[in-house]
């Protein structure tokens, strides 16, 4: 989406690589298609070769050699350790608490990491009908921790969601416990501008990291609420050559997909 800047990589590449870095070796990661899948595979091909990728289509331990075009790509089935049914993947694997990391995208995200992927506008008469929850509501509830990856803009980073699809930290501390949710919720929100993390006390998202060349002012302007900023902010380590090559090689595989 964003052109390659003079730093030699795009802001989307930075976002994807920052997300990849969040996955640790041997973790079990529930992956959606798009940036989460790309990030998870970058992690698998760089610092976390034994990360276990679980796709909601029921593929466990997939090791795709090209980026899957859909959540049920045959490449996932062919490279998986096991394939199970969709009811099983949600009941025995996600709900049972076997997922370390869940990756979510967002059409809207609020200051407490709650996410909307359902509608813009009124539910009954939406301005934009979005795809809906899919696997996200239960990933947000059950994964030990959640990583949100989303481009930052005032349209997306909103004070008040039009619809709460996937639960973050509603009402701040104690909110998830009160709902009986077992996972810890969003621990990090990675954008094309930087990284936000819940404040340890209030759980409100705070800008903690800025990607190379991004200013606090840019981040504030791209946020629809009064953005809190950590002081000092950290600067994201730019992509390494290995990370960037791995990412670009993966992206190139889309062209030779069927």
């Amino acid at each position, binding site marked *: 989406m964003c052109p390659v800047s003079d730093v030699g990589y795009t802001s989307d590449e930075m976002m994807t690589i920052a997300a990849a870095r969040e996955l640790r070796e041997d973790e079990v990661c529930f992956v959606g298609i798009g940036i989460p899948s790309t990030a998870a595979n970058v992690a698998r091909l760089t610092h976390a070769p034994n990360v276990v990728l679980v796709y909601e*289509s029921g593929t466990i331990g997939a090791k795709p050699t090209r980026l899957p075009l859909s959540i049920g790509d045959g490449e996932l*089935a062919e490279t998986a350790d096991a*394939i199970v049914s969709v*009811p099983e993947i949600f009941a025995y694997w996600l709900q049972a608490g076997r997922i370390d990391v869940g990756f979510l995208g967002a059409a809207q995200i609020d200051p407490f990491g709650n996410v909307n992927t359902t509608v813009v506008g009124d539910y009954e008469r939406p301005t934009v009908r979005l795809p809906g929850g899919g696997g996200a509501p239960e990933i947000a509830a059950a994964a030990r921790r959640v990583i949100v990856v989303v481009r930052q803009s005032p349209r997306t980073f909103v004070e008040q969601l039009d619809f*709460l*699809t996937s639960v973050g930290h509603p009402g701040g501390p104690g909110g998830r416990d009160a709902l009986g949710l077992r996972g810890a919720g969003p621990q990090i929100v990675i954008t094309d501008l930087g990284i936000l993390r819940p404040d340890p006390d209030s759980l409100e998202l705070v800008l903690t990291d800025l990607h190379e060349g991004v200013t606090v002012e840019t981040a504030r302007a791209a946020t629809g609420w009064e953005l809190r900023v950590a002081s000092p902010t950290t600067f994201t380590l730019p992509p390494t050559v290995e990370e960037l090559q791995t990412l670009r090689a993966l992206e190139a595989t889309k062209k030779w997909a069927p």
Partner: protein
Amino acid sequence: MADLTDLRDAVAALVSDGDEVALEGFTHLVPFAAGHEIIRQQRRDLTLTRLTPDVIYDQMIGAGCARRLVFSWGGNPGVGSLHRFRDAVENGWPNRLQLEEHSHAGMATRYVAGASGLPFGTLRGYVGTDLMQHTRTEQITCPFTGEDLTAVPALNPDVAIVHAQNADRRGNVMLWGISGVQKEAVLSAKKVIVTVEEVVDEFMPRPNGVIIPTWVVDAVCIVPNGSHPSYAHGYSERDNAFYEAWDLIARDRERFRCWIDRHIHGTTDFAEYLRSIGGLDVPRV
């Protein structure tokens, strides 16, 4: 015992106006041929049930088959929006579409309950989301621990339709690879249609092989490439260019209408349809 029959006859006999119909297939083995035949036979007022109403339901919604949609994720997988679905929800074209919206986990639990002969299923889900205000869920309390969980009502569609790789000569059905909720959809439904790539003498063991006995299937129809543009593991690859082309076709009402008229109403079956779109190996845009 399943009848080995023509898809046209199967849809004519088993799918009626007003039915709840579940065409399942989780980006793999999506039963496009059956969806087209339902459009061709101009079924109306259907409740369309499906976790992922992707391009197949976009076509059926745009063609005016649907009164209601029961679903959990409505997008063009890997591409973007479903424009016909959005047009129906946002603008009521060609008619208003009632929504019954769930999460994947909820839909899966509902099919499992339906397949199990239970009126409801239980899951950890929905709590704290706005979905609860817009769909049918109830709180249920564990009688042993006192913990509150979420109950969802069983799905028991009038007709389930799936595409599979193989049938044998007695009408047993085998599919493999990513199997989604197909077994549960079949076992939750009152009537079942299966389209298959081919009939074989004997099934081979396969990764995640799922066998559906002939006596729970009403009609087996041989439709090679019947899940195009999705794929049948071991038989075909996803026609990704078609999914991308669909984004352009479906964006515009008139272009969509022309496409349906020419390629679905203008053809008599799926083989002719495939020829009309130029076969399997042409660029789509």
